[in-house]
């Protein structure tokens, strides 16, 4: 019975990578190294998403987050990395207070996560018999307003089978407004127009 359960091994590998590089982001003072460690940490997070069976979210994490957002951040690092800003040390007092508060918060969160029996793992044999389901189609239909995942459940008056079309529209418009705003904020300053001498 005590066979090694391989998904757990991969969980340990990806979890250790994600946590370790997150701690490395916190501990290093060099902004370029922070960006690199952040890329690795978020990529390992995508691996954890795959292990949880959410393949679509994991793929989007790699595409949008690692491929888009972090490249944007690295552009920011390259545009501002003058010699004196590459390595900015945190003061010792900040470290002391921060690490104390952080350790307390971490202790609280982990205790809360492990104290609920329903949140513990299933039996490994039971999980291995489950069908691997594809998650992209239900998510896409949900964004269009149709909940195909609830289609077989008995109709009840108090269950509202609503999709996510409104949320999708709100996020779309939000993204449009934000990108226009960002382009406006970051535009190149126009030099004062030289008065033409006639």
């Amino acid at each position, binding site marked *: 019975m*005590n066979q090694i359960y391989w998904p757990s091994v991969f969980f340990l590998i990806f979890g250790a990578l994600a946590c370790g590089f997150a701690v490395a982001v916190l501990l290093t003072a060099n902004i370029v190294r922070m960006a690199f460690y952040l890329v690795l940490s978020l990529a390992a997070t995508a691996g954890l998403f795959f292990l949880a069976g959410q393949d679509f979210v994991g793929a989007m994490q790699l595409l949008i987050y690692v491929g888009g957002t972090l490249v944007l951040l690295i552009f920011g690092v390259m545009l501002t990395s003058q010699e004196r800003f590459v390595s900015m040390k945190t003061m010792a007092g900040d470290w002391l207070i921060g690490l104390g508060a952080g350790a307390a918060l971490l202790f609280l969160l982990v205790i809360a996560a492990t104290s609920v029996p329903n949140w513990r793992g299933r039996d490994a044999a039971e999980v291995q018999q489950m069908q691997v389901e594809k998650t992209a189609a239900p998510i896409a239909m949900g964004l269009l307003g149709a909940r195909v995942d609830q289609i077989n459940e008995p109709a009840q008056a108090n269950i509202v089978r609503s999709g996510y079309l409104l949320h999708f529209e709100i996020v779309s418009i939000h993204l449009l407004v934000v990108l226009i705003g960002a382009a406006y904020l970051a535009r190149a300053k126009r030099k004062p127009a030289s008065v033409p001498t006639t």
Partner: protein
Amino acid sequence: MDSLLTLANLLTEAPGVAHFMAVGAVMFVCGALCMATKRNALGVLMGIELVLNGANMNFVAFGSRQLHNGGNFLGLDGPLMALFVIVLAAAEAAVALAIVLNFYNNHDSIDVDRADQLQG
């Protein structure tokens, strides 16, 4: 202390929601400390990304059918909330980067401690 033992002997057991939440908690705390202690404005932004990912981990774990072991189940809400968080994080990074670059152009510095003009 007994509850912490559920995180041990993982090699022969399937990981559960609690394990994912523990990883998410570590990322959340690291991100929060980054936001609090980094003096580089881009370091603060990276802390925000870590916090959002730590929270995303919980959404994904609670929406996963193979981790679900009784109790409340998020279903499709979990992955969709995670997707919305990813998109909003991209939007937030774009605006925050624009603000940081503006600050850098105006003040010739990226130290957040120098941004004290609004201080009374």
